[in-house]
């Protein structure tokens, strides 16, 4: 069993913050995490962090103090935060350090991400003819999934309504206005079957975590939440991924399936034991598919689970209790660590207005992104 735990968490609110740089937000989150852990920056023995578009994380040490520690910059697309977490977890597990800081932050301009075919090994024709859009991929993946597994548009809308409801009670969330299922369904159709309010937007924000092992973990000021495992996988041949002019008929499971299975196996904890989960919800359909890909339910079971309220705050398996990407936006480097931040708050019982009731012992996080990467973590009290 892992001897590594989270002893401090810090967040800079998500949203839009004109005049505040990504690195400024990272420093705020780091100071908050250190204060929460009751640890001084000079005590940190190892750090890892990154952003996708807002600079090198180790530049933040100039703000926090130049203490000479090993700092690994991570830039790994949508898995940036999770890769930093995996790196710190591995360093602590190997007893290379006893106390580590992990930080993820980002600052994206308004509007959708604007990828270019040349950067993805594709001909210019792919973009010129109007197929170089991530939103199209998400729509086509859930469209197929809905026809195979009987998921309805109402369920897509319920996922988004839940996100905005949870976001409304999260002071760090970007979108804090509840929206009804009907408002979501009747918002502008962007890529059938997904409407405007079913998609998240690129945003800004930062999250930091202090991890510890051994005696430093046992001496922690707050009751630690153990980081039982972190697993990271990329796509295999046959997985349906974004920006694919063709896909093989012989299909392979999504990288989430393998990352989740590995995370559960390393943790010695099964998906049935999970009390609360934070799943990648780039759009409503993603949360639905990731529930099953992670092993938290069977394919097709989501329709009943979501319609019956099982994934609501008060349900059997609350999902995206902080509002997820839909209510927080997606600053790529910070997104994965936000999930861990929320699990720690919930397992500590400190989530205030949005605290899931009842004893919650095991938490699960899952990030997924282009071009087919997924990272999962299991945490427990």
């Amino acid at each position: 069993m892992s001897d590594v735990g989270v002893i401090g968490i810090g967040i800079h609110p998500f949203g839009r913050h004109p005049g505040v740089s990504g690195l400024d937000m990272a420093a705020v989150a780091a100071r908050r995490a250190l204060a929460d852990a009751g640890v001084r920056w000079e005590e940190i023995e190892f750090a890892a962090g990154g952003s996708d578009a807002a600079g090198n994380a180790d530049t933040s040490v100039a703000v926090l103090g130049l203490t000479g520690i090993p700092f690994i910059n991570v830039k790994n697309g949508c898995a940036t935060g999770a890769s930093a977490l995996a790196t710190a977890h591995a360093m602590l597990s190997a007893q290379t350090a006893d106390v580590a800081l992990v930080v993820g932050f980002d600052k994206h301009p308004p509007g959708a991400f604007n990828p270019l075919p040349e950067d993805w090994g594709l001909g210019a024709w792919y973009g010129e003819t109007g197929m170089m859009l991530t939103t199209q991929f998400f729509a086509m993946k859930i469209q197929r999934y809905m026809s195979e597994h009987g998921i309805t548009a109402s369920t897509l809308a319920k996922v988004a309504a839940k996100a905005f409801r949870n976001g409304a009670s999260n002071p760090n969330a970007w979108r804090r206005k509840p929206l009804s299922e009907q408002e979501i369904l009747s918002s502008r159709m962007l890529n059938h079957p997904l409407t405007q309010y079913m998609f998240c937007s690129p945003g800004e924000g930062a999250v930091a975590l202090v991890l510890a092992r051994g005696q430093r973990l046992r001496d922690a000021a707050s009751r630690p939440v153990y980081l039982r495992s972190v697993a990271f996988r990329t796509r295999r041949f046959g997985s349906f991924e974004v920006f694919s002019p063709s896909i093989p008929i012989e299909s392979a499971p999504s990288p989430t399936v393998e990352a989740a299975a590995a995370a559960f196996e390393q943790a010695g904890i099964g998906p049935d034991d999970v009390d609360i989960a934070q799943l990648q919800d780039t759009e409503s359909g993603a949360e639905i598919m990731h529930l099953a890909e992670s092993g938290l339910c069977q394919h097709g079971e989501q329709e009943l689970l979501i319609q019956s309220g099982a994934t609501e705050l008060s349900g059997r398996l609350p999902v995206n209790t902080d509002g997820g990407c839909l209510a927080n936006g997606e600053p790529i480097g910070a997104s994965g660590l936000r999930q861990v931040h929320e699990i720690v708050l919930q397992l500590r019982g400190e989530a205030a207005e949005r605290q899931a009731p009842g004893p919650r012992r095991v938490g699960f996080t899952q990030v997924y992104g282009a071009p087919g990467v997924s990272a999962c973590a299991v945490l427990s009290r």
Partner: protein
Amino acid sequence: MSLAAARPIADGLFVEAGGELRLLGSECDRCGAVTFPGQASCPRCTSTDVSDRLLARRGTLWTWTIQAFAPKSPPYAVDDPEAFEPYGVGYVELPGEVRVEARLTVADPDQLRTGMAMELTLIPAPGVEPDVVTYAFRPVDGEAP
């Protein structure tokens, strides 16, 4: 629309063979994996022994969406959101070969469903040059959605 009077948007995507329009893919000589567009190495077994393959003209719609907002330009060829008309995009499964992503000739969700029969065709490519074409799939005539 025939290729004879038109210019393909890119080389190596589609050709006229035996009087018929065909997509040009590749097939791995070792494991048989088919890709579109053709690749110089196999994404399944990493072999570099691959051959050109003319893909089937007909297949079934595996999934689809409607692009209802103007894509950013670049990479989209047209930078005129005011004049934008929605278009369909989907993956068409060519039996025993591969699923190909393509523009669809239909942009009405009521006329599309997974599993319907589709056939290869050409459409004008987005942009200012009227004689440039790209590949697309259209519902097979008589196929009710």
